């Protein structure tokens, strides 16, 4: 009896703690989502209005330029910029990362560990510290406030981590498979595309999702390298809602929801591979 009582207390405690945990994780985000569907007046109301009394899509309509009272913030342009910049830099980073990851997974060469460490260390440079010289150089060579300028930076930002992940995925594929194909007359290039690439495809896809999210979410560099609607991304545009003394909480929340949605969808797609990639690459590597 003593044992079963103890077990019961244990499972109640487990579920209680889990509940608190989920509340802490979810409530701040839910509050932002709820706010996105209510007028700004309700945000400021005293006493507080917990559940929106008249939930509507006005905030979204406003920031996308529909309806009578539009905000002067060009969110559609920011959205397009973000999408173009994130997709292009991800595609390039994946190509470079595949080639580099394959080198680390399949070849032995001098300076291998040194090069790997060097790649990782290049990723540690704080964005804000890196932004200073890039700002100076980009403004001299005309890359400031261009999509291309930001794409180049994000490719470099994503390459080290992409190599790390893809290296891990290629290592999981036995060397013997491509060797067998080569014995059968394939070139190494053919063996790669016919054997190793299809097997590592889902892993590479999750490395791509990770790279996409890094570019999509980046702020420190983007906020200093962009100026106008030509290249400003969503995270930078979010700050447009804060004027000197007033903040459009409802509009900002609506924009926050727009930034979150792709991230949430991709999280569902990536989670399994991501964990596998990080642990295999890290421990077994």
């Amino acid at each position: 009896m003593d044992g079963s009582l103890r077990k019961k207390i244990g499972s109640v405690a487990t579920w209680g703690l889990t509940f608190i945990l989920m509340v802490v994780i979810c409530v701040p985000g839910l509050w932002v989502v709820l706010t996105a569907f209510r007028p700004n007046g309700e945000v400021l109301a005293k006493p507080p209005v917990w559940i929106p009394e008249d939930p509507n899509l006005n905030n979204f309509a406003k920031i996308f330029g529909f309806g009578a009272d539009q905000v002067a913030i060009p969110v559609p342009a920011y959205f397009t910029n973000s999408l173009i910049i994130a997709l292009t830099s991800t595609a390039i980073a994946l190509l470079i990362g595949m080639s580099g990851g394959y080198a680390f997974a399949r070849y032995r060469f001098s300076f291998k560990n040194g090069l790997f460490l060097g790649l990782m260390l290049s990723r540690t440079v704080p964005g804000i510290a890196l932004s200073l010289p890039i700002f100076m150089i980009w403004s001299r060579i005309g890359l400031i406030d261009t999509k291309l300028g930001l794409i180049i930076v994000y490719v470099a930002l994503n390459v080290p981590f992409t190599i790390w992940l893809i290296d891990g995925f290629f290592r999981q594929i036995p060397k013997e498979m491509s060797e067998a194909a080569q014995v059968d007359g394939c070139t190494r290039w053919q063996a790669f595309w016919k054997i190793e690439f299809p097997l590592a495809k889902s892993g590479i896809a999750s490395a791509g999702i990770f790279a996409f999210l890094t570019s999509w979410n980046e702020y420190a560099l983007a906020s200093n390298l962009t100026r106008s609607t030509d290249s400003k991304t969503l995270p930078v545009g979010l700050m447009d809602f804060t004027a000197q003394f007033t903040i459009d909480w409802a509009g900002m929340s609506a924009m926050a929801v727009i930034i979150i949605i792709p991230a949430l969808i991709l999280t569902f797609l990536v989670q399994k591979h991501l964990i596998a990639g990080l642990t295999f690459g890290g421990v077994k590597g």
Partner: protein
Amino acid sequence: MATNRPPFWQREQYTPYLLLLPALLTLAFVVVLPLLFSLYTSFTGYRLIRPESLWQWVGLRNYKRIFADGDFWIAFGRTIVFLTIALNLEFLLGLGIALLINRITWGQRTLRTIMMFPMMFSPILVGYQFKFVFNDNIGILNNALQSLGLSDGAIPWLVDKYLANFSIIFAEVWMSTSVFAILLLAGLFAMPRDPLEAAKVDGCNPWQVFRHITLPFLMPFVFIAMTIRSLDVARAYDIVDVMTGGGPAGRTELLWTMIARTGYDNARMGQANAMAYVSILLSIAFTYYFFTKLLAARKYMGGAD
């Protein structure tokens, strides 16, 4: 010269370097070259508003100035304390959460997915979200405390010296704990059952099992998480920039926000680059430390070649 030798780009021993070439070129152009330039700039009196000052060599003056500046050391110290508290809390909470979720069988997948949400949030959104939560006037936290009758005034979460730093650490921990939780959970899944059974048979209590079997097995996973985290500790800049902007009156100023203020707002690029170098060395030291730990742990696991 043997004529039947293939050209050098087809020779096996050069292949890995050729494969790595695009990566190395990109990083040389975007990271190494700019960092060399900023190293040079940190020895000049460069101000954005006076372009010709880029050529004005001042030697170590920028470094002397920042090292003699009390505010710099306060921000530096605050950054170290901030990272120490945040990383330790993230590790402990992450470990707790991983052990907790490992015990749950029903709904575990869903819990795991929800746990990953914060990892995917843009730091700027995390900052905004908590600026909203902790707002003294309209924030959900003060509203809830007042509705429950736990407080009658507006608690100045983002204004008071201690509370503002607490709020920022809270946001940072909220965002990054899941890195630890997810990786440690993966470690727990990969753990062999036999030693656990054997220890129980030998009469170890749960704490001894955890301390002498589970924890040592998890250490490589801890170091992976630490390495990954140390790569982007500077993302805290985004959070602080949105939540408080380093204010009020520099009470939440971290090294990174100080760099931005000096470089862009005050246009003192030379001095900002000197500070940036201090922050770069700090980050590299962090990553290098955990990376060597990771390599040692890997060797211990016998997985490396």
